[in-house]
């Protein structure tokens, strides 16, 4: 009883109340967010590997190693190139879909539901599904291509070095175009119809209307959507894990796959910590830069 009254008194005290409310959240984030981050920085200066457990300060040896690690830069290049390829496709397809569904249409809700389904399923399931789809013998993709081409094809989508990235791109675009579609649909719905109609009456060209009315309306929303997706693409792991496992060789290794291999397969704990710190540092710089640019633009 006395305990409940003391809690009751604390609840009446606004100052204590506001800290009580936020305490659990801060505790959990400190434990799972901040503690691992500090641990990560410490580890990157030690020398912990499968064979060694040297916890003394080792200086910047692991950071120095980053510069000469071709596999690391290759995985970063893969990640950046894939992001640069996937994002414009998703935006363009998402925009076209949004235009298609902008005006009222019978069964619109059902169509939208079907289209957004890929976005809510697990990337692991998406990857598995596309691996089955792309199977050179029992999958339907080669059959469809064969039907269109009029001759038998045996394309090794998940093995051939020149076909693996396109295959992964298809899976990624399939899963995440609906996200861009939904966001652009919401943004386009907010564009002022009367303004569009009066522009049409005034004889403004399609391009002119797009640049002067539509683009300003969707840009802020699109910017955030691109930021969210870009951060997602940097952590691209699951789809590649199921479709190719990073192979053939290291052909489809992204930074997340490489960091995983280093930490959990080769137990290069300190070196993988240095990689992780590099990624976090680069991402932070990139996001701050992007946000600044937007502020300037406004």
């Amino acid at each position, binding site marked *: 009883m006395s305990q409940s009254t003391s809690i009751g008194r604390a609840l009446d005290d606004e100052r204590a109340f506001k800290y009580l*409310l936020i305490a659990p*959240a801060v505790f959990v984030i400190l434990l799972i967010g901040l503690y691992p981050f500090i641990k990560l920085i410490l580890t990157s200066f030690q020398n912990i590997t499968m064979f060694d457990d040297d916890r003394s300060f080792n200086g910047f040896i692991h950071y120095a190693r980053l510069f000469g690690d071709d596999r690391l830069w290759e995985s970063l290049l893969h990640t950046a190139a894939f992001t640069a390829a996937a994002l414009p496709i998703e935006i363009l397809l998402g925009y076209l879909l949004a235009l298609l569904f902008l005006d009222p249409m019978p069964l619109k809700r059902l169509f939208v539901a079907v289209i957004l389904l*890929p976005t809510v*399923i697990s990337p692991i*399931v998406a990857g598995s599904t596309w691996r089955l789809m792309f199977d050179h013998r029992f999958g339907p993709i080669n059959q469809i291509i064969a039907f269109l081409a009029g001759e038998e094809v045996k394309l090794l989508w998940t093995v051939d070095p020149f076909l693996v990235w396109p295959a992964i791109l298809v899976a990624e675009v399939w899963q995440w175009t609906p*996200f861009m579609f939904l966001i652009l649909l*919401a943004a386009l719905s907010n564009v002022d119809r009367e303004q569009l109609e009066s522009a049409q009456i005034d004889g403004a060209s399609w391009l002119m209307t797009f640049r002067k009315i539509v683009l300003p309306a969707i840009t802020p929303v699109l910017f955030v959507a691109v930021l969210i997706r870009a951060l997602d693409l940097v952590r691209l792991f699951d789809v590649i894990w199921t479709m190719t496992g990073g192979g053939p060789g290291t052909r489809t290794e992204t930074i997340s796959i490489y960091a995983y291999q280093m930490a*959990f397969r080769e137990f290069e704990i300190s070196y993988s910590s240095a990689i992780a710190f590099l990624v*976090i540092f680069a991402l932070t710089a990139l996001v701050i830069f992007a946000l600044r640019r937007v502020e300037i633009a406004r």
Partner: protein
Amino acid sequence: MNRGAKGWRLAARLACAVAVAAMFLFPIYWLAAISIKTPEEIFAYPPVWIPSGFRLDGYATLFRDGDAWAVWNSLVTAGVSTVLAMVIGFIAAYSIVRFRTGGDHLAIWIISQRMIPPICVAFPIFLLFVSLRIVDTYTGLIMLYTAFNLPYVIWMMRGFIQEIPLELEQSALVDGLSRWAVLWKVVLPMSRAGFFATAVFTFIFAWNDFLFALILTRSDVITYPVQVTGYFGSQSTFWSKIGAMSMLGVLPMIFVVGTMQRFIVRGFSMGAVKG
């Protein structure tokens, strides 16, 4: 534009919509088809486009071998962590909005937690879980998903709570309700649509996670995505298991989209507008 042209336009749009929907649906159809095909049909060349019957052997195998436990584990970890993250996140968001606890810096620090790719902190978290002896336990995975989703919940709920007029809370306080009661009897009901949309997403994130489950489970609380990847080996005979297990992971999502489409659309567009 006359009526005929309008009709044709609508017909063309409908035709496009059907084609697009079919393209997005086909891979999931193919997965579902594999899960109910006979082994002969799965490994037929050329492939069988429509299964001859509706066989649940693949699913029966999963339940008989006990592999289906993975789905239960996913349900428990995603469900419990969603409830925890929503409660903790909701009260934290309220504190940030109403009392400006921690100022802008705390809010930005919290959301910036979400920016870090999971793999970057995976190993230190693994070490932490080893020392706490919670690797491969419900407690561990629930704790992780709760923490991982908290920034998202706080950020979203912050936006929804900001929209609630302060007068409502003040009049409730004048009526003699405690602050704690105001929180649950005034603020929560006022933001319930947003609360629900956020909860749906929180559940989806945890339900679909792979990387943390891969690292932090061994056998006892293995989740369904980890189980699915376990079937990819040199042996291609596991196709029906891949199909069935994946479908067990997809079916709840089909249910979610079917019944809560409004919330998902809202959640996606809110995320981008307020992000």
